[in-house]
C-alpha cells in the first residue's frame, strides 16, 4: 500500500507525536508558571509574564521557530569555542523544534490556566490557608485539582493548534510526517497521494485527542451539578 511508503509515514507520525507531546510538557510547565506569575501580587512577575504572552502570541510560530533554530545555532557556534569545545556542535532539530513549540504554547496555556485558576472559588484557597497549608500545598492540593475541569476546553483547543503547528518542524529539517510525505512525493511523483495521507493521519490524531479529552473532562466534572436548561 502507498508503494511501500506507509511504514515511513507512520514513523514520521511517531516523530510528530513525540514532538507534540514533549513540547506539550514544556508548555504546561511554562503555562502554569506564567499563570501563577500573572496572578501574583508582584508587579515585576506580572510584567514579565504579560510581556511573554503578548510578544509570543503576536508573532507567527514559523518566525519564532526560525529565530530559535538559526539564532540558537549561531549562539552555540560563538559560545562553544569560548567554553573550550573544539568540535562543531549542530543544533538538534528535534530539540530546537520542541523548545520552540513548547515556548510558544506556554504563552497560550498561560492564558488558559490563568482563566481556570480564577474560576476556582477564592474561598477554597482561603480555606486551605486557614488550615495552615503552605502556598505550594494550597496550589497542589486545592487549586490544581479543581482548575483542571475549567482548563480542559481551552486546553483542548491549544493542544489541537499545537499538533497542527508541529507540521512546521519539517521546515527546520526534522523528519516528521510532513517531511516523510515530501520525500515519498518526490520519489513517486505522486504528491497529492502522500500529502493527502499525511492529512488523514493528522485528522486521526486530532480526532482521537478530542475524544480522549472529552472523556477526561467528564471524569474531572464528576460530582459537579449540571444546570438543566
Amino acid at each position, binding site marked *: 500500500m502507498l508503494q511501500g511508503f506507509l511504514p515511513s509515514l507512520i514513523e514520521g507520525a511517531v516523530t510528530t507525536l513525540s514532538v507534540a507531546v514533549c513540547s506539550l510538557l514544556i508548555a504546561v510547565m511554562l503555562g502554569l508558571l506564567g499563570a501563577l506569575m500573572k496572578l501574583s501580587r508582584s508587579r515585576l512577575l506580572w510584567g514579565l509574564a504579560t510581556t511573554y504572552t503578548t510578544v509570543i502570541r503576536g508573532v507567527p510560530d514559523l518566525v519564532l521557530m526560525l529565530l530559535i533554530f538559526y539564532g540558537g545555532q549561531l549562539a552555540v557556534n560563538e559560545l562553544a569555542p569560548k567554553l573550550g569545545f573544539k568540535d562543531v556542535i549542530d543544533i538538534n532539530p528535534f530539540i530546537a523544534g520542541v523548545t520552540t513549540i513548547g515556548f510558544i504554547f506556554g504563552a497560550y496555556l498561560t492564558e488558559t490556566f490563568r482563566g481556570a485558576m480564577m474560576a476556582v472559588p477564592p474561598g477554597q484557597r482561603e480555606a486551605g490557608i486557614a488550615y495552615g497549608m503552605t502556598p505550594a500545598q494550597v496550589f497542589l492540593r486545592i487549586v490544581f485539582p479543581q482548575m483542571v475541569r475549567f482548563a480542559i476546553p481551552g486546553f483542548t483547543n491549544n493542544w489541537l493548534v499545537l499538533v497542527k503547528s508541529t507540521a512546521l518542524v519539517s521546515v527546520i529539517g526534522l523528519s516528521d510526517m510532513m517531511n516523510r510525505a515530501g520525500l515519498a512525493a518526490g520519489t513517486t511523483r505522486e504528491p497529492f497521494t502522500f*500529502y493527502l495521507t499525511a492529512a488523514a493521519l493528522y485528522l486521526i490524531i486530532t480526532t482521537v485527542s478530542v475524544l480522549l479529552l472529552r472523556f477526561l473532562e467528564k471524569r474531572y466534572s464528576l460530582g459537579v451539578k449540571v444546570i438543566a436548561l
Partner: protein
Amino acid sequence: MLNFDVIVSSLPLYFNGTLVTLKLLLVALAVGLLFAIPLAVLRASTNPWASRPVWLFTYIFRGTPLLVQLFLIYYGLAQFVWVRESVVWPMLSSAWFCAMLAFAINTCAYTTEIIAGAITSTNHGEVEAARAMGMSPVTLYRRILLPSALRRSLPAYSNEVIMMLHGTSIASIVTLLDITGAAREVNSRFYLPFEAFITAAAFYLALTFVLVSLFHLAEKRWLVHLAPRT
C-alpha cells in the same frame, strides 16, 4: 549587539514583504468570509442534509495543518494530468494563487463555525418575535439573525484574523517574499539570524497591534449594545 546597518538597509525588503502579507491576508479573508456566510446558514440549519456536509468540510479543514493544505494545492494538484491540461492551470501553478486559495479555504472553514455558532446561539425570543411579525425565513435571516450573529461573531473573528495573519507566514515556504520570506532572504544573504527574524517579529507584532485596535473600534461601533453597563 544587533547589526542595525543591515536592518536599516533591508527595510525596503520588509516593507515589500508587508505588502505581500497584507495582500494575501486581505484577499483570503474577503474570499473566506464571502463563502463562510452562506455556509454558516447551511451549517446552522436543522436539516441534516444541509448541515452535515458543511460540518464535514469544516471538520476536515480545521483538523489538518494549514501547511498540508497548502502543499496539497501547490504541489499535490500537479499530480493529475487533467489539472495540468485544464484552463485553470496557469493560476494553479502560481505560488501566490495557491497560497491565497489555501488560506481562503482554511479561514472559510473556521469563520463558518464562528458564524454558525453565533446564529445558533441567538436568543430564541428574537426569532419567535420575528415569526410572530410574519417575517418569511429570508427576511428573518436578513433582518434579525445575520445582523445580530455577525456582530456577536466579532470577538471570535478578531482571533481568527490574527491567527490568519500568522498563518500567512508559511507562504514563505512556497517561495513567496512576504515578511517571513524577506527575513529568510536577509538571513541567507548575511547569515544574521537575530537581526533578520527579530525584525520580522517586530513587523508582525506591529501588524497584530493594529489589527487588534481596529477590532476594538469595530466592537465599540457594533457591539456596544452588549458591553457591560457601567
